[in-house]
């Protein structure tokens, strides 16, 4: 899932300090699961902002709502009648949701209350670890199901580098060396031949905004033309 971390309170205060009527919009999907921007976190932030602004002698009228998802038009439509009552929106969705919200209400300033941190697994309650950078050219079949782009600090395709330290990455003893792990797993599977060949330079797919249209589908405007 997509994980995010709530921004420091002072930063959020600074972002909306000039606005008197603010709607806090949560998202009930990924950021709710990772405890950053769901219904509960919306309630906490709204209360904090209310108190903070009162203490700063700059009271604010706050509303709050948590949508099922901010990355789907159907759910954003719920806000259509509400937004006109506010002079700013705070989104607690991931960067995708924040932008889709801003796109739907282009006349209203939208501010992020979270920093989106990646595509991660849930290791335990409140503990998430990134696993995918959505590079667009998956090599997991060659690397024993361990992503060198994400899990190697240098994103090497022909690792391990010389900084491997007793199985850890050179940046941090707590960070396993991805290429050491790739080696160990492929060895156990008898598949070391997968990494004997030099991998050629990556054809990066994530350097321009990407649009995905699945086979059998077209963009609506294209269909009309």
């Amino acid at each position: 899932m997509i994980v995010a971390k709530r921004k420091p309170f002072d930063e959020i205060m600074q972002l909306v300090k000039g606005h008197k009527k603010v709607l806090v919009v949560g998202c009930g999907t990924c950021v709710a699961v990772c405890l950053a921007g769901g219904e509960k976190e919306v309630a906490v932030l709204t209360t904090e902002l209310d108190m903070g602004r009162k203490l700063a002698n700059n009271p604010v009228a706050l509303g709050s709502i948590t949508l099922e998802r901010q990355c789907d038009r159907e759910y954003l439509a719920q806000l259509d009648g509400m937004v006109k009552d506010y002079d700013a929106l705070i989104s607690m969705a991931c960067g995708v949701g924040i932008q889709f919200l801003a796109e739907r209400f282009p006349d209203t300033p939208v501010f992020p209350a979270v920093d989106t941190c990646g595509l991660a697994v849930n290791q335990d309650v409140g503990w998430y670890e990134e696993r995918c950078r959505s590079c667009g050219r998956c090599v997991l079949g060659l690397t024993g199901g361990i992503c060198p782009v994400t899990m190697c600090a240098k994103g090497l395709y022909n690792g391990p580098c010389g900084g491997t330290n007793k199985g850890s990455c050179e940046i941090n003893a707590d960070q396993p060396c991805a290429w050491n792990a790739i080696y160990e797993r492929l060895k156990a599977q008898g598949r070391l031949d997968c990494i004997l060949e030099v991998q050629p330079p990556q054809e990066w797919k994530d350097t321009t905004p990407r649009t995905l249209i699945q086979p059998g589908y077209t963009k609506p405007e294209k269909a009309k033309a």
Partner: protein
Amino acid sequence: MKSGSNLEKVLTAGHFAFTGELGPPRGAHAEEVRKKAVFLKGRVDSVNITDNQTAMVRMASWAASLILIQEGLEPNYQMVCRDRNRLAMQADILGACALGIRNMLCLSGDHCQFGDHPTAKGVFDIDSMQLIATVKKMRDEGKFLSGADLDGKPQIFIGAAANPFADPFEWRVHRLAKKISAGVDFIQTQCIYNMAKFREFIRQANDMGLTEKAYILAGVTPMKSLGMAKYMKAKVPGMDVPDEIISRLQGVARDKQAEEGIKIALEQIAEFKEMKGVAGVHLMAIEWEHRVPEIAERAGMLPRPQV
């Protein structure tokens, strides 16, 4: 000849090569490079010019390489993948060659987190293996990485590093093989302290025929003090400093530790000269350039061959 560099000539003539290293200054004084170069001139076959080593900003390695050429020394231009993308790399390779640089060392580079700009974005558009292949393609096929023709092939003697001591040990010789198949002409290893492990690594490389395909230069860094040895053992990733090195330095008075460190290095060099598969020594006397003349002399490396 692939490049006509002095290092290439020394190695192809069958001499035991001896290379040095020089870290560019953290400032714009060319004089700093010239001062260090004095100690290396005539004592080594080629001098590695580090590229923002340990991710600290320094004078560009190509620029310090040019100063070295002005001083009559031969540089081995180091290039890391951390700081530039494939366009910048190929442009720098062409520029370096145009201005007389003939050796290159292709490296991944230490992570930005180690240096003075820890939040910088590491580029790593291509990795060291792919950089080797890029230089080879430019030199031998006269083509850019894209496949387009280039006019004026860069004549570069292609080098890379190998760390026989980092995990997983049994994979290291295969990684060396990959670098050779990517196109390296010579290898300079990480600083060697664990001789038993290095002997095993070279034995594997010999068995696989790798030492016939590329020249392996053994990396030597004399310990300046017990503190340095302890630091390298504990803090430098991928460094293997056995306890016997620590205890040898512990066994002498504080003011004799540097001498003991040099003695250890000299013993290593003597063994490397006789070791099958080792074509030379790469002396990394870190901020100790002024001791290179003495070490070269005592190691029996002087005079350097004129080829």
